[in-house]
């Protein structure tokens, strides 16, 4: 897919393909609204948000090879920074162009905070520590309502401000140039713009000096250090970049939903984002996007099919769609690792590694 979209290899075909994808992305929300209702636009928005998260985690796990099981904590930090500074909770209504970067910066700080003490740890230890870190953040969010009410505890924060540029409010319905823009459609276009920026950053990062250094660290840290790579700073950078992407996504999530609570930031969400990265193909940007889109939409489709099918077969609902979704997640993780460990769209390097391993084994 990467090769297909590379203008250097197939100039005409690539531009045609890009134009088609762009046109499809522009038309998509209106098509969804007229065919399936606004709810599906919301679902699409959440899917794009998960693509953003998966791309952020991909920097940490895919590029630098550091398994992070507490990634959702950064998403939570970004969401709470936005919610606290732009809601009636503290009666602060700061503009989003200030709060969103601030959320990214705070998440970035937390990323370094987690990264610094864990630099020396090996893969599986790191996984457990990051998992513990995610839980600590969640426990604090749940309990920081006493003695001074900061996070409002398990009730969460409501009535969070939507994005607003001058008089243009993102959650208001409007008719511009004969087209009816609902709130979710506006957010959709915003998300697509953010997504394109983040994909751009990721592509540039991957082929940069930093990206190659991460790859080297992932393959063999000691050899990388011997080649003169500053492993400490680069690992911290991976954590910081991944975390700040998570922070931005969190801020958008808070504004889009208008309500957040610690419930949205449990371990399962971290595992889900990780599944997206693993399923699509660790380290390959297009693979990660595919994985995130698949894992976001398949459960929604299940929600609309599992219930009627079960009711028809058994007369009542035996297993909730949510449970089936989780079972499928688990199964997907196991089967992927057993049969296609490099993911659906593996990165070229991983593919090469696995082939040589098979050859030598």
């Amino acid at each position, binding site marked *: 897919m990467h090769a297909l979209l590379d203008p250097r290899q197939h100039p005409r075909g690539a531009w045609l393909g890009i134009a088609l994808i762009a046109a499809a992305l522009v038309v998509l929300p209106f098509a969804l609204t007229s065919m399936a209702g606004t709810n599906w636009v919301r679902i699409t928005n959440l899917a794009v948000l998960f693509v953003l998260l998966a791309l952020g985690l991909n920097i940490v796990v895919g590029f630098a090879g550091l*398994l992070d099981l507490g990634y959702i904590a950064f998403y939570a930090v970004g969401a709470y920074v936005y919610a606290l500074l732009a809601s009636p909770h503290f009666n602060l209504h700061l503009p989003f162009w200030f709060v969103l970067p601030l959320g990214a910066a705070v998440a970035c700080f937390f990323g370094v905070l987690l990264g610094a003490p864990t630099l020396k740890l090996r893969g599986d230890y790191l*996984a457990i520590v990051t998992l*513990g870190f995610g839980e600590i953040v969640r426990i604090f969010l749940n309990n920081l309502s006493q003695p001074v009410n900061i996070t409002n505890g398990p009730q969460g924060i409501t009535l969070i401000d939507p994005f607003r540029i001058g008089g243009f409010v993102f959650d208001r319905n409007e008719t511009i140039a004969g087209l009816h823009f609902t709130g979710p459609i506006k957010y959709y276009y915003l998300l697509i713009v953010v997504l394109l920026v983040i994909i751009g950053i990721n592509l540039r990062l991957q082929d940069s000096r930093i990206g190659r250094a991460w790859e080297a660290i992932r393959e063999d840290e000691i050899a990388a250090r011997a080649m003169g790579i500053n492993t400490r700073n680069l690992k911290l950078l991976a954590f910081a970049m991944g975390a700040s992407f998570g922070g931005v996504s969190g801020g958008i999530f808070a504004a889009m939903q208008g309500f957040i609570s610690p419930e949205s930031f449990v371990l399962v969400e971290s595992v889900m984002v990780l599944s997206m990265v693993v399923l699509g193909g660790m380290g390959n940007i297009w693979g990660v996007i595919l994985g995130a889109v698949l894992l976001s939409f398949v459960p929604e489709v299940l929600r609309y099919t599992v219930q009627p099918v079960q009711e028809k077969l058994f007369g009542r609902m035996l297993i909730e769609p949510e449970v089936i979704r989780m079972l499928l997640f688990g199964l997907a*993780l196991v089967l992927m690792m057993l049969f296609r460990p490099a993911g659906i769209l593996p990165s070229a390097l991983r593919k090469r590694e696995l082939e040589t391993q098979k050859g030598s084994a």
Partner: protein
Amino acid sequence: MDIFLQQLVNGLTLGCVYAVVALGYTMVYGIIQLINFAHGEVVMIGAMTSLSVIIALTGAHTSLPPLAILAAGIVVAVPVCMAVGYTLERVAYRPLRNAPRLAPLITAIGLSIILQHLAMIIWSRNPLPFPQIVAVRPYHFTGNPDGATITNVQIVIIVTSMLMMAGLLALVYRTKLGIAMRATSQNQAVAGLMGININTVISLTFVIGAALGAVAGVMVGTYYGIAQYQMGFILGLKAFSAAVLGGIGNLAGAMLGGILLGVIEALGAGYVGDLTNLCQLSAWSTAIAERCVDDPNLTLFGSNYQDVFAFLVLITVLVFRPSGLLGERVSDRA
């Protein structure tokens, strides 16, 4: 002093349970250098299975004594967990033994999700009350009628755990299987050349760990009086922290780490409220003094932060002494 003793007893009980679960992690790590991420789920299945057995037996109005019913619960839970442990090893670990380290960790996470949700389908998503068939009887061991107590359940948990740990040590250091296990953990290839069936030994390690986990599950269920499909996650995480604290791969370390972690957690939960009570600052701030008139328990951190302690211990140990208290320096295998 009484509060201190009481928390010490509670911590010791909890610590013994952590230690037994931690042994499961440390045995597997010692032999194949992998974290069995799904071990917490094995403990949960042990608790749930015994719960079903106990409910079935008490519901059938048999005239069995309570202890026999509890024993029956354990007798059924242990083989079920052994089967789960064996399956885990076959599905998640054996095919990936030479794969990159991340691969078995991810399959284990996947299996852990599957086990949790299967348990949820079987036993419902709500916390289930664990039948209290053994009457809890507190004993005042300080002589003071209002002082610290130790209950019969706590005594049984502590004694059973100690017996199981002693049994495991005897197994590992006194039997032929133990020699095979230790040889496999040192060098699989050479152990294989010496006529040890590596696959059998690794499977048996998982199965023994799972059996210990099953008993631990029953103990946790009886102690807290509650069981839920998610209980294995946090318990597993704490037990893993305990194993790391003691030095992962080291049996004595897991026991020491478990008991230490239990005591730290109980004392932490018991004292953090008093230590961070803001009313001590009343002299410095009139605003705090005014609020303390209404609420003398104006604490910064209450006992609801209990779960944080285990993680803080884990992170601190890994930062300052990555090989744990009793562990030897492990070389990087990454």
